[in-house]
């Protein structure tokens, strides 16, 4: 398929507004009579609330009200489950415990809200919050993923007799049988730690109940405005048409903003209705570290069985996933780990035993990558270790095991995060992998460059890791596209935008279909008043699911345009072309009509409309894939480490990405750059340090280290293209891809750089301090 607009490096149409500070964020919303909220949050991670005294807070001038759980009465209820519990598998344990709006009885993680202050300014609200007196009875905290399952452990949820949140086994083939045939069986234990999503913009809400209009408007920095609208209406006893949720520009989502309902989202609209006043709250960075969801903490015991040639005969793993104090997001994240622990390899025998535990830590929901980085880390580390033990080239071992191109669609015979069978739709892995080796000069590096650097006393290593990403899952998204009498196009979809360039990419899809300029398309995202149905922006699904809905709607409008134009121009549809906002008769440029004129004719003010027709040049369409589109990629780096200071320098970073058809390569590259920076954070910088009381020790950006421009290498991106067979555009998601393989690449490159030390890295992130400890241990042992 040759496209005119799709696939072009079109500059983002949203940028001028964003870069000149003209774009609307929740923080910019300011309404007459607006009040401000501040929260009294628990410092304790686990404690009984004995008493709450708000009397002094109420005395402070400018305070309008202070609310606790008691004030909510019957309106107090936990948040809804966000995904359905696992259905089909036998012997599944799943204990659902969901977050609450305001603490009743017992605090289960630090940062939970005990009281809300509403005041005339945020300053006053914070002054008053300091005057609230709460008597706590501190309880020992549940922190350790393994100890919490021992008999007699303190319990997070007293109404459960265990800290077990879920248990599930997935099995494919016969691992034990395969193990017997193996020439090599390796087993290792991996520790993967927690990180924050750390979006530049924290969460924020403005809730405005209009009593006369009986209407609630909520501006919310969320990834999922439509489910928030539906949920708010249900909780507050309203009809959906009485609630409008707007997710304007959002400064980064990365997963946590798909989580709903956050306590603040439940409480502030409720108070706005009580007071009949708009209320604003912008999360500050400290709140974000305690109250916004996090991810990645898992312990894995993994076994891999191989033949002496390096064929993977089977993989077995038992792992524990920490879901924090509640599990509103079900099993999505650890299921992703399960489905990515075989990477892009043809693994016939797989046994995966998953245990999910409650702890007194912040809630876990997907963060960019969502369980996938852990799966890729495990399988890639195991392959590196196996190659070393078998004395094989690690790259050759990978090549040997790739799912071959003729094996697609490839059925993994286990379930994925959507509880559907895990099927990889398409792929062509080896050429992309070879390309990565070539870009990084793998052979020359190993043969010539590295020995030369070694001789100079430099420790420089190479790491190359392939990975898969399941993307574009259902259930569905929709879009509406219409031609205005001006000839310009208006369009809307339900997904929200947090930097994904929807306004440009979707406009390109429409421009392609309708023969207009990208700048002629005005795309609205994330406003429930503009589009009624949908789920949200997550799981690398925007370009696949919403993108194909936009394409379908625009395609339908195109048919309507052609039909009407054919009648008016008295020319068969096949002889018409759409270009420059006109419909022209091919080869007769003077015979034409503009889209605007057609739009007017399609919506006459007088006269009879033919029965069975609809007014206007407009269409609403939905797209719901049976299963996702699986993307592939390879990342590589050349890394220098100073073995005295443990400081690193990434000398070169390359990626090959196969996300099928690209709507806009600039956008794809931007996603990869951002993802890689997050991955570098996960590999080396970013770790949430919880102590034995489940207290977070680094709840500020001074101590939670996010890589910035000074830490980022130059990234070279190459695009491969295996179009997705099951959607018309052929797109696969790429939003999370960049973050997924980085810790595995980093570990491989670091081991390679320090190869004199014979180091095995089985954890992430790996700080310089930790690297020092590992090297010390090596020295002590030898």
């Amino acid at each position: 398929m040759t496209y005119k607009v799709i696939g072009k490096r079109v500059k983002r149409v949203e940028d001028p507004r964003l870069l000149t500070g003209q774009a609307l964020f929740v923080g910019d919303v300011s309404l007459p009579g607006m009040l401000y909220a501040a929260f009294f949050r628990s410092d304790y991670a686990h404690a009984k609330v004995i008493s709450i005294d708000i009397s002094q807070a109420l005395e402070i001038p400018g305070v309008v009200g202070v609310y606790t759980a008691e004030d909510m009465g019957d309106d107090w209820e936990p948040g809804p489950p966000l995904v359905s519990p696992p259905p089909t598998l036998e012997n599944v344990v799943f204990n659902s415990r969901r977050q609450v709006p305001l603490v009743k009885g017992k605090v289960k993680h630090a940062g939970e809200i005990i009281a809300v202050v509403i005041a005339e300014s945020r300053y006053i609200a914070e002054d008053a919050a300091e005057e609230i007196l709460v008597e706590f009875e501190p309880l020992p905290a549940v922190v350790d993923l393994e100890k919490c399952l021992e008999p007699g452990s303190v319990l997070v949820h007293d109404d459960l007799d265990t800290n077990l949140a879920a248990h599930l086994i997935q099995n494919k083939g016969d691992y034990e049988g395969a193990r017997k045939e193996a020439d090599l069986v390796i087993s290792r234990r991996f520790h993967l730690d927690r990180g924050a999503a750390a979006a530049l913009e924290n969460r924020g809400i403005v809730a405005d109940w209009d009593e006369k209009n009986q209407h609630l408007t909520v501006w919310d920095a969320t990834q999922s405005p439509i489910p928030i609208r539906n949920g708010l209406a249900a909780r507050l006893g309203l009809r959906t048409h009485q609630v409008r949720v707007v997710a304007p520009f959002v400064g980064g989502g990365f997963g946590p903003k798909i989580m709903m309902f956050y306590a603040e989202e439940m409480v502030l609209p409720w108070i706005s209705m009580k007071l009949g006043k708009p209320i604003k709250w912008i999360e500050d960075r400290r709140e974000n570290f305690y109250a916004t969801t996090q991810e990645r903490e898992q312990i894995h015991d993994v076994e891999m069985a191989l033949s002496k040639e390096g064929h993977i005969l089977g993989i077995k793993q038992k792992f524990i996933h920490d879901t924090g104090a509640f599990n509103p997001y079900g099993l999505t994240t650890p299921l992703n780990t399960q489905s990515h622990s075989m990477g892009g390899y043809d693994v016939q025998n797989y046994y995966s035993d998953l245990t999910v535990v409650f702890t007194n830590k912040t809630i876990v929901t997907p963060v960019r990558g969502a369980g996938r980085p852990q799966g890729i880390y495990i399988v890639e580390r195991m392959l590196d270790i196996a190659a070393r033990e078998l004395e094989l080239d690690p790259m050759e071992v990978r090549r040997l095991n790739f799912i071959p191109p003729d094996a697609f669609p490839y059925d993994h015979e286990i379930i994925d995060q959507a509880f559907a069978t895990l099927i990889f739709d398409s792929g062509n892995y080896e050429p992309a992998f070879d390309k990565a080796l070539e870009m990084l000069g793998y052979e020359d590096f190993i043969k010539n460059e590295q020995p030369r650097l070694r001789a100079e006393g430099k420790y420089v290593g190479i790491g190359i890791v392939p990975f898969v990403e399941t993307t574009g899952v259902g259930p569905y998204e929709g879009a509406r596209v219409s031609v205005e009498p001006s000839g310009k196009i208006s369009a809307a979809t339900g997904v929200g935008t947090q930097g994904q360039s929807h306004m440009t990419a979707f406009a390109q899809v429409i421009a392609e279909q309708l023969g207009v300029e990208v700048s002629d398309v005005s795309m609205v995202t994330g406003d429930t008043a503009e589009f009624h149905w949908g789920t949200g922006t997550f799981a690398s699904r925007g370009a696949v699911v919403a993108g194909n809905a936009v394409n379908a709607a625009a395609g339908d409008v195109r048919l309507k345009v052609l039909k009407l134009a054919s009648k008016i121009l008295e020319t068969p549809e096949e002889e018409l072309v759409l270009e420059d906002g006109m419909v022209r008769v091919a080869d007769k440029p003077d015979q034409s009509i503009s889209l605007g004129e057609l739009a007017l004719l399609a919506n006459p003010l007088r006269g009879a409309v033919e029965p069975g027709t609809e007014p206007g040049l407009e269409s609403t369409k939905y797209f719901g894939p049976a299963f996702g589109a699986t993307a592939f990629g390879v990342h590589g780096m050349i890394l220098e480490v100073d073995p005295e200071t443990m400081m690193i320098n990434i000398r070169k970073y390359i990626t090959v990405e196969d996300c099928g058809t690209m709507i806009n390569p600039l956008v794809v590259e931007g996603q990869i750059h951002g993802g890689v920076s997050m991955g570098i954070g996960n590999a080396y910088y970013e770790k949430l340090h919880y102590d034995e009381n489940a207290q977070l020790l680094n709840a500020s950006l001074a101590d939670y280290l996010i890589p910035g421009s000074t830490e980022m290498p130059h990234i070279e991106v190459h695009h491969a293209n295996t179009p997705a067979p099951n959607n018309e555009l052929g797109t696969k998601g790429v939003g999370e891809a960049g973050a997924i393989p980085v810790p595995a690449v980093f570990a491989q490159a670091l081991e390679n750089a320090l190869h004199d030390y014979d180091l095995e890295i089985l954890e992430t992130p790996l700080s310089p301090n930790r690297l020092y400890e590992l090297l010390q241990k090596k020295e002590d042992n030898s």
Partner: protein
Amino acid sequence: MKPAPFEYYAPTSVSEVLELLNEHGYDAKILAGGQSLIPMMNFRLVQPAVLVDINKIPNLSYIKTHENGIRLGAMVRHTQAERDSLIKERVPLLHETMPQIATIQIRNRGTIGGSLAHADASAELVAVTTALEARFKIQNLEGERWVPASEFFVGLLMTSLEPEDMLVEIEIPDLPARSGWSLKEVARRPHDFALIGVAAVLTLDKKDRCQSAKLVYLSAGDGPLVAEEAAVLLQGQKISEDLIIAAAEKAATEEIDPGNDIHATADFRRHLANVLTRRALAEAYQRAKGGK
């Protein structure tokens, strides 16, 4: 993360500042660049009742020569010092130090006086002014006094400044001929406070022996940590690789007193101090020999 209520004054002369400090005592805080004070106020770790903003006072950001050294007004911004040609020529150690402090945005606002008055043991300027034997001019309503760096920094975030005192000027003497210097530090990201760092100053005599040595560590104790015994090892000796190794070992294992935190254990910090001291002494020695 909003500060507690406070009264705000923006005087335009040093004497007005001194009046205000005298009147409000412990309740008042001077606001210079705000890069340390404002975050602490927003976290409500400090809640001064009165803020005395000294940004409107003219003539506090000069850099000038004075006898055998230079003098800086307390309000010289980090960026100004970083780009100043006089500093580059006369106090190259300070010139090389500046870019290692925080980010450019923070350096654009942060002041030399603020950094020194704040006396964070991780601050480069605290170690470097100690290594260079700087002197600080302090004023209050009663008059002025000069305090050497060695007496100015008295403990964890503590100086000899009293609540009614203002730091107004910093004097840095020239180094003797045949001196070399180096600042080495390890930070997770270039702009972070260093896990550990060392400022080294060496002066050689005519026979190439070490006439004097100064090793001052940052993030290695409650204040700038001077490794005196390591300096004694070097004094009067011909600098050799073995001597450097011995001095580094002495300072790192016996003299410094680094803490444990989430970024590094004391053990790792000592290891780094050892490595950095070797590198710093080697560089300082090279520079001293080269006469630079």
